[in-house]
């Protein structure tokens, strides 16, 4: 077992070298973790096994097609079985498969060991963005596509990272083992970054585990891999891997900012600040379904502009945003947004696009409801 693993690693690294010219957007990336390199060499090993089998099998086939053409005067033989040949071509593939299964099993065992992680990150898929929470660190944020729609619609030239840019990348330390806990607020998504060889479904009601130990600082990009509705193509992932001390500094800054925001809950907010903050939150969270102008997309996503039922009933509006509507795509946002963000976005929805309720919902009111 250990011998075959060593052989495989040797062969894998040789093949890796031999095919490095291929790895420019034609092949699986080698990646920047131990696991990603092991997966890459498994991939190249099985690939070359297939190539060799293919050359032998198709070689015999095309030889026969050429050599035994009727137009060359071939007379057909009449044999139709040969036990020893049949035993051989059953046994040889079996041996190859066993040889392949051993290293694959070893790699899989490593991938399934998230123990001794130094940092836990909760990854929550939402239609159509990712929410990251650094567990126990009081830092969390939402990461959405930042490529402007004008590039999608061809009104503006597409830039280099078209569809692969986000407003807030996930920042991770290099050299530390990071455990991911994956879940979802709505449908099934799948968090995938090829360079990290992490792909894991995020499923409502489940928490899946995966882990990574990144070896090189850099920007690593990926996408949601499981069809999750209309904007499945528009929920990319960007990981910014930085040196461990730089990460610690970044985390401390984020913790301070979070604390400052939390203290804002108690004060009285003016209409203008609420509207300004609310527009920002609405744009990154709500606009994909309810549209930037609040017109919605019937029948699934109701219009908010001129929605009398909501405008006449403030309590219901707050309830819908905080707790969602079961049986519909409307998710509960009480866990994803802080009281300031919730108050601001509700205020914004009640006073934008010609809605004129005049209500200014205070963060402190929301805070009280959340407790």
């Amino acid at each position, binding site marked *: 077992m250990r011998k075959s693993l060593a052989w495989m690693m040797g062969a894998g690294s040789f093949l890796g070298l031999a095919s490095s010219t291929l790895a420019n957007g034609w092949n699986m990336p080698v990646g920047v973790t131990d696991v990603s390199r092991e*997966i890459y060499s498994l991939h190249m090993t099985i690939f070359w096994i297939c190539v060799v089998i293919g050359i032998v099998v198709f070689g015999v086939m095309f030889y026969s097609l050429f050599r035994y053409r009727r137009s060359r005067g071939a007379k057909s033989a009449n044999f139709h079985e040969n036990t020893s040949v049949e035993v051989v071509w059953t046994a040889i593939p079996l041996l190859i498969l066993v040889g392949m299964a051993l290293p694959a099993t070893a790699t899989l065992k490593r991938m399934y060991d998230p123990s001794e992680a130094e940092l836990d990150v909760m990854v929550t898929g939402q239609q159509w963005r990712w929410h990251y929470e650094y567990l126990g660190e009081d830092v969390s944020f939402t990461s959405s596509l930042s490529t402007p729609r004008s590039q999608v619609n061809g009104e503006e030239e597409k830039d280099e990272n078209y*569809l692969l840019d986000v407003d807030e990348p996930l920042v991770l330390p290099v050299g530390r083992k990071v455990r991911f806990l994956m879940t979802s607020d709505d449908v099934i998504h799948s968090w995938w970054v090829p360079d990290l060889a992490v792909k*894991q479904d995020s499923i409502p009601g489940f928490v899946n585990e995966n882990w990574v130990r990144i070896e090189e600082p850099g920007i690593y990009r990926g996408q949601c891999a499981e069809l999750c509705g209309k904007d499945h193509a528009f929920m990319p992932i960007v990981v910014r891997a930085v040196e461990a001390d730089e990460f610690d500094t970044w985390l401390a800054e984020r913790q301070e900012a979070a604390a400052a925001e939390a203290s804002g809950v108690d004060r009285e907010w003016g209409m203008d600040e609420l509207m300004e903050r609310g527009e920002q939150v609405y744009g990154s969270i709500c606009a994909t379904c309810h549209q930037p102008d609040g017109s919605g997309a019937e029948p699934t996503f109701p219009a908010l502009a001129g929605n009398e039922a909501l405008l006449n009933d403030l309590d219901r509006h707050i309830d819908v945003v905080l707790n969602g509507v079961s049986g519909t795509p409307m998710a509960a946002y009480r866990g994803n947004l802080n009281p300031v963000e919730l108050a601001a976005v509700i205020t914004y929805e009640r006073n934008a696009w010609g809605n004129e309720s005049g209500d200014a919902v205070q963060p402190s009111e929301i805070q009280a409801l959340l407790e």
Partner: protein
Amino acid sequence: MASNLPPKPTLEHSTAASGGLAHEHHERPRGIWRWLLTTNHKEIGTLYLVFSLVMFFIGGIFALVVRAELFQPGLQLVQPEFFNQMTTMHGLIMVFGAVMPSFVGLANWMVPLQVGAPDMALPRLNNFSFWLLPVAFTLLLSTLLMPGGGPDFGWTFYAPLSTTYAPPSTTFFILSLHMAGISSILGAINIIATILNLRAPGMRLMDMPLFVWTWLITAFLLIAVMPILAGVITMMLMDINFGTSFFNAAGGGDPVLFQHLFWFFGHPEVYIMILPAFGIVSAIIPTFARKPLFGYASMVYATASIAILSFLVWAHHMFVVGLPLVAELFFMFTTMLIAIPTGVKVFNWIATLFRGSITFETAMLFALSFVVLFTIGGFSGLMLAIAPADFQYHDTYFVVAHFHYVLVPGAIFAVMAGVYYWLPKWTGHYPDERLGRWHFWMSVIGVNLTFFPMHFSGLAGMPRRIPDYALQFADFNMVSSVGAFMFGVSQLLFVWGVIKCVRGGEKAPAKAWEGAEDLEWSVPSPAPLHTFETPPEFTPITH
């Protein structure tokens, strides 16, 4: 290559006994009623084949909408909502409307002729199973016009995207799938009854042509798994309309349960779409190599082992849903095992070619390209079986490349090979070889241009089912789109060739191909409406 085909058998020396007299028993209804009320296996076979051809074009047009949008990055032609409906409907129509009914059509025509039966065992049921299909698929297609659009959650319709988050038309989608499922189950029962009860005296199971064998096994698979599909869509129906929470996590349900159930149906379903293809190719290669099929018995055992293994591999579609390690290992090993019986089949076909006397009629060209391209799909399947690597392959265009290789130049090429092979029996005329060769080469080039680059775009990181993509995937997608349009247009040559053959052409004798040995070649060409009214003499051919 095929320009100097051998002389075809002439009418004079085709004096093989006809299985029965082609006289009419009674007044037959005419026009539309003839087709609505027919219980004749040949007419119903024709209905199935025409229906699947129509569905093939509708599903093909949906695929071309997808490929046109993906021709370059950005959104040009359709919005994501409609794009998702197109990918979903393309998959559903091709799987349930084109590939499966085309095999049932071939079974209707050929199984009674190959076992020496006068008709299917249950002719009225046969009529009913067919006519369910146009109703089911009209309903399915009509969902595209309903408010909120048609199914947009992929042909695998994972919950809760297909329940809580689905458009209102989903209830109709469920109803249409129920009807298609009932049709399949009834068709399967009929095929089993025919094969087990109506074989010519003296024909043992191990004397049956492989097309009959593969269909017998396929029919058992259908009966085993279509009820699972019916169960899972019924659970969806309850979740959507009656407030249950089978798949709704908020109500204590389990979205992963959906996937286990779906793939317990879905993986055998994959083999339902390929086993009859093995049977067709196993008829054509010996005919045009003029040499008995190598390893008949091992072909039967390989087919049966693939069918049994197909119940033990379903979770290889779910390697990244968070299965426990032991489950990953179990499903990886069982999946790798499938390579062995599949390999045996490919080796047997090649051993049949070895030391044969080979000619390259259109049917043979399609059968040979099936062997090569299906094997390529098998190789990528073996790669996908390696669970750790699947963490990178899963849900990318690599998977799209894989299953299109086994389905298009796999299943569909085999159906086309079968059509070119049996057209002389159906119409009494040989198909136009020149036209057939054009169709073949255009299809083969088109198919590879379309699907080969998808291996690269997938490995480079392109997820499947996206209407827009990052710039590094642009070149591959452009090539795929060009290939798809080439493949699509070349299918018009197929239709032209078939129509031309129905209307006339070189007359074919009873035994249309010199190397063909099975019972269907003992009845006149075209096969009269009623054949084998008295059971034929059957002398086993050396298998």
